[in-house]
């Protein structure tokens, strides 16, 4: 039976790095190729040795698909293509292809900034990798090879994020990547058509949560920034170069405009310009409101947000600074943090996840005395706030997507085991489909029941229609014939035609069975008893006693002989053709019960 196999190398019952292998109809596809930022060694990348065991990567994998530009979905890609040696096609949407190298480069710079980092990709490798990427449009069916095709759907979440449908023949899988079912300030909601895939692989980050509205979180954020600035404090917002930073910039820009605020807002990296350029370039990927107002006012051209210079950090008075990196573990953001941490009027807002070991993680977990280099102790008096702006579908959203796509099976990834377990039960109850949640390294096998198109010969069709009722286009109809599979095509023809085409002679196949009956009488008497018995039971059938002593019931032949060692036992040889199989087996079971006394 055809099957689809799914093995997560990452994102199986965790929210680490996504990397999922899918085998469908003989094709192997890797979905996402993410990096775990919590490690400084090879553990940050998925363990690809499990794929290289199958021979050369490029021969084994048919393609790699990247859902969006977040590093936990694309961060290992240059390592995979330039260091591990994958040389095949890579697919992502146009915005992802444009933005991905910015984030990879940003992270590379932060990583090599630290000493002792080895086995990390270079700038040239990022470029070489990006040159292998084939960019796709939404809803465009891309033919990877003759059998394998992929199609992207809008996923919300971040600019350019997509869900991908992977299809081979009539079997298909949909991978959601990260998605958001409610529109936010600059992006729309995820959407997919009723494509009824054999399997839907869905993220489940907020599997058990019904999230409070993003508007609330935004209001809270603005209130906190406003209060700090009003009392003359400085606000530091550590961010990665692209993604959440733009969202928060739009938020602050609009708020500053509305409230007529004067405190300066700075963005510390030179990357904003490029990032904003991409938001402008890919305006069609943003939500309707942004697209509509674009003509009057471009949301990404900021009036209040200006480029930061290192000397500004010492300026007196309130200000808001966006600085990289987002986890306060090196570079500019850490330097500003050290300057401002000692003043309780200031505030740092962490808008994203921080890995263990970083200053960001420490202050979020409440540590207020930090040992810095040279045994200096930094006392953190500034206020510390965590605000998640990540845009994932919550439990309600996930259910909504399943309702939209109508998959035959669901598989959950990118979530915590306990939460997944809860959602899995909910999905199985509500939709009556199987739901799986493999751990990393575990393979889930899903059996599919694909329908295969077959051409039917006109002769056979006419003959079958002549026998039965007029064909009803909407109802399935049973047809009998010989299936010829040749040159990748399937044809149903009449057996005679098949014999003729293939140059074969017809053979008759008969089934036989021996039934032992206790009867001391002579053979011909036993035969007569059997004949009478059958005639009595099978009233609607033609039962004949032939001159040679054998009995026929339709095409079934019965002969009786005495047992060679025991004359009291008679052996009945029953034989029948394939067409009369039902009757043949009925007869044997009837005879096995023995002959009734009354017929004697």
């Amino acid at each position, binding site marked *: 039976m055809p099957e689809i196999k799914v093995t997560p190398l990452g994102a199986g019952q*965790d*929210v680490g790095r996504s990397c999922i292998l899918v085998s469908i109809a*003989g094709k192997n596809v890797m979905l996402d190729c993410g990096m775990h930022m*919590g490690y*400084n060694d090879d*553990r940050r990348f998925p*363990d690809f040795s*499990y794929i290289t065991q199958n021979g*050369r990567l*490029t*021969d084994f994998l048919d393609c790699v698909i990247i859902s969006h530009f*977040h590093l*936990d979905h694309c961060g290992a890609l240059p390592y995979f293509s330039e260091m591990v040696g994958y*040389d095949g096609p890579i697919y992502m949407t146009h915005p992802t292809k444009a933005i991905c*190298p910015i984030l990879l*480069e940003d992270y590379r*710079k932060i990583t*090599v*900034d630290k*000493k*002792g980092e080895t086995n990390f990709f270079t*700038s040239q490798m990022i*470029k070489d990798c*990006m*040159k*292998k990427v084939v960019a796709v449009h939404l809803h465009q069916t891309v033919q990877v090879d003759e059998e394998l095709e992929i199609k992207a759907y809008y996923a919300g979440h971040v600019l350019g994020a997509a869900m991908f449908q992977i299809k081979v023949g009539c079997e298909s899988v949909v991978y959601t990547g*990260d998605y958001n079912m409610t529109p936010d300030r600059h992006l729309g909601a995820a959407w997919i058509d009723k494509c009824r895939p054999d399997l839907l692989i869905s993220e489940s*980050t*907020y599997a058990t949560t019904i999230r409070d509205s993003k508007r609330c979180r935004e209001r809270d954020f603005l209130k906190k920034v406003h209060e700090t600035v009003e009392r003359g404090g400085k606000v530091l917002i550590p961010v990665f170069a692209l993604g959440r930073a733009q969202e928060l910039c739009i938020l602050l820009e609009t708020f500053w405009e509305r409230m007529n605020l004067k405190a300066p807002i700075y963005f510390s*990296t*030179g990357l904003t310009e*490029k990032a904003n350029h991409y938001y402008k370039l890919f305006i069609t990927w943003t939500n309707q409101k942004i697209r509509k107002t674009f003509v009057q006012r471009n949301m990404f051209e900021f009036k209040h947000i200006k480029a930061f210079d290192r*000397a500004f950090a*010492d300026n007196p008075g309130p200000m808001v600074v966006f600085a990289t990196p*987002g986890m306060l*573990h*090196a*570079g*500019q953001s850490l330097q500003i943090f050290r300057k401002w941490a000692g003043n309780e009027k200031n505030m740092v807002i962490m808008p*994203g*996840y921080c890995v*263990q*070991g*970083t200053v960001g993680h*420490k202050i979020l*977990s*409440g*540590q207020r005395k930090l*040992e810095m*280099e*040279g045994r200096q102790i930094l006392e953190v008096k500034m206020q510390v706030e*965590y605000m*998640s702006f*990540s845009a994932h579908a919550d439990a309600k959203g996930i259910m909504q997507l399943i309702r939209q796509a109508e998959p035959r099976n669901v598989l959950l990834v990118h*979530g*915590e085991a306990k939460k997944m377990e809860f959602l899995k039960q909910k999905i199985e109850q509500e939709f009556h489909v199987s739901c799986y949640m493999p751990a990393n*390294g*575990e*393979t889930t096998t899903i059996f599919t029941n694909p329908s295969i198109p077959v051409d039917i010969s006109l002769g056979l069709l006419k003959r079958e229609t002549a026998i039965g009722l007029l064909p009803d286009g909407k109802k399935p109809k049973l047809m009998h014939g010989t299936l010829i599979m040749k040159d*990748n095509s399937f044809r149903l023809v009449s057996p005679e035609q098949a014999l003729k085409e293939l140059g074969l002679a017809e053979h008759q196949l008969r089934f036989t069975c021996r039934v032992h009956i206790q009867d001391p009488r002579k053979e011909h008497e036993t035969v007569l008893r059997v004949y009478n018995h059958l005639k009595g039971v099978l009233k609607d059938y033609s039962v004949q006693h032939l001159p040679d002593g054998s009995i026929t019931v339709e095409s079934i032949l019965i002969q009786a002989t005495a047992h060679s060692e025991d004359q009291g036992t008679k052996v009945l040889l029953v034989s029948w053709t394939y067409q009369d199989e039902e009757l043949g087996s009925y007869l044997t079971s009837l005879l096995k019960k023995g002959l009734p006394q009354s017929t004697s």
Partner: protein
Amino acid sequence: MAMSFQKPWFLARARRRFAMTRECALLLPRVCAALADPRQPGSDDTCLEKLLDWFRELTLFDSTVQLVQDNPCLTEFITSVLALPEPSPSILSFTLRLAGILAASENRFQHLQQEKLLARLFGRDGPPNSAVWEDASVRSGWVQGVHNMMHHQPALHLLCSGGGIDVIFTLQGDPSLFVASAASQLLVHMLTLSVESETTKPLSTKDCDWPACAQMIIKRIEDSLQSSSASHIEQSLKLLTSLFGSCRATWTEVLWLGVAKQIESFLTEETVQVQHMLANLLLNMAWSPVFRDTEGSFWALVTSALEHLTPVQAGPLAVGILRLYKCPQDVRIQALTVLLQPMDCILRAASQPLEYAGLLDESVSDPITVESLLSSRSSCANLLCQTLAHLEQLLSLSRLPVDLPYTSLLRSLMTILQFCNGFLSPASPLGSTISRILINCFRVQRSALDVLAALSERKGSDTLIGSLFDLLLAYLESPNTSPTVLKKTFQATSKWLVRLQELSCSNSQGQQTEKILEDVFLVLQKRLCSPCWEVRDSSLEFLTVLIKCLRDQDEFRQSLLSSEVPRLTENLLEDPESYVRASAVTAVGHLAFITYFAPESPVVGNQYNKENTVAKLQEILSTDPEGFPRRAVISIFIKWLRQGCTGQLEDTEQFVSRVIQTVEHDLDWEVRLGGLELIEVFCSQTICQLGLLQCPYAPVSSAVTSSTHWNESLQVFCRAKLFSFLFRSLCDCDKPVGQRACDVLLGLRSNFYPVSTLEGSQGTGDSAVGIAWLQRTLRQGSLAQNFPTDGSNGVDFQDPENMMLALGAVALEELHDELNRSSDHVEKSPQSLLQDILATVGTIEENEADCY
């Protein structure tokens, strides 16, 4: 030029970083208690992993019981996790691995066994019998824990007597790839440990007395090989493959002889399909001297495998054999036949009937299987790609143990490439089928071009060079060539152009070369204007490679300069795509070597204006919004300076000064780093030119020091405003910049201060007021922000005397050591990790489930 300040105590300090300090010992009990507390939310997996890393470091060089004795919380932790009715899978998995690490030494093993902890964790009634065993992380933790512990006989006995071997054998078939693979590795490790630590006399086939544990494992291997289950056979073959791959002891042959017959039968057995596993097994054996050096039976088996396995299965074995230097000649020939057969078929498929053009002697090749694979759509590309990859592997070896028929190989590669772009549709049925399958097949094109590039370095394939360039040019010109294929075509073309130049020097093929070069530049012109940035970028990279390799060749220079390529390249300095701008900068920088900087520049007129180009690159350096082009400019400037292209000292001084003033405010630290490298080169050249030293940066004795010279060079450096950038950089927020600046300053100081005088002057406190300020601000790390321009407290960075004082007074070595540590060394420390785990206890769960 960079100097090494690595000191022997540096490593010792790194080791100290992981030591169990007093602070850590105080934190550990609380951490253990928090981890064992089921009411606490689970700790981040990375924390647990890092904690295990730390314990691994702590126990690596210490086999005593001190760690467990001094920190009883560790055993208490294990005990309390064992007592939990429903431990969380991640904590149990952590406990199993931790216990394994601690029990890696026999002393600590006995200590833990006093309370039977290990028996409870890894014995019969341990986790394998509990409900949590369902969780893959627990099974994985169990296998890893056993593996961590498995370094001595008591551990072996614990496992063997407690039914552990059965568990491990079962886990070989685990649904989790990670667990299955770890179980297999563990068995290999246990088998090796058992034989090597428990055998009293050498083992031989006649008198084979395996130790008990080894005996159990071998028996299981033999049994499963004889079973009818393909998965059991596969597991044992996998185990043997990794055993023979990792262990080269003579006893492996004794083990092999016991299973050889059975394994041999798999080659011809049709009921059990495990043939695909045999190639790897035999290959690992072939690399082991135990088998490789034997005569007869092993090689006979290899020969048989090469015959019986399908071409796809036999390919990896064949290429592995061909890489061996020690191998019987007949086996080598057979391997070569397997490898070349698809290429041979391609040649024959393309040739006319009755014309022999194959690669192989017809008597040794049986092409039916290969032909059928090549004529099937599903297998053709796979077989060709595999063969081509193997050929590339062989050709990349510097010394090939086998002779390849280069000319025929080249011909078959060209045939494949012609099939792929539809240039060849042969009349033979096989040929026409293959050509139909291969048309526009990018995978095969890429692989074939890789081999083609590798083949350029082998002599003997030159007769076809004319038609080869026709083909390459066709690929370069065709609009159907995909960007990735085009890039590979460029790579192959550049390699063959170098080969062509070598040939034209030795023969008189000048005209042919000229024509080819003209054609190449014509097509390059078109490609530089491609709407696709990937193509423009690959074209520029191709041009740079050509200039690097061929800039000394007259024909090349003339063809290039008479084409439109240089003008188009300069235009691309304004490309909208930053990657392309960066590549254009590099190409223009290299072009300069054959235009302005060439001793006999063939350029006539002012078509190439040096000042214009330098100004353009300067502009990119100061205004380009992206890092790549700016980094490319600074690299080119460094290259120019190294090659002495920037003119006389005075011009160079001005040039460097201008560049430095531009880059010192750059937001990209790699650009600033480039600026420091530029300074380093400039300083060494200046010092050399002013006759101070022959060898820059070498320490000098006071006798040699000439005050006039150093005065002069110091004045140059001050005028060029190098010092302000260097001292500012010491406090750069990006560490590599600080490190590099410190290196340069240390180098300068060693030139200006003889070692003896330095020792005397440092730390005497007689430095000027300004220098004291400099030292103080450097310590505070805030120089970059509060840089004074004047005032009594300030330092005049342009005053040579002041700078001489600063160089002598600032504690650069101390600063160097400080900077040389990784920027997150504090956060990476075990103490920080323990604090983080404690601090996370009870924090909001939401923080954990988020994306980056």
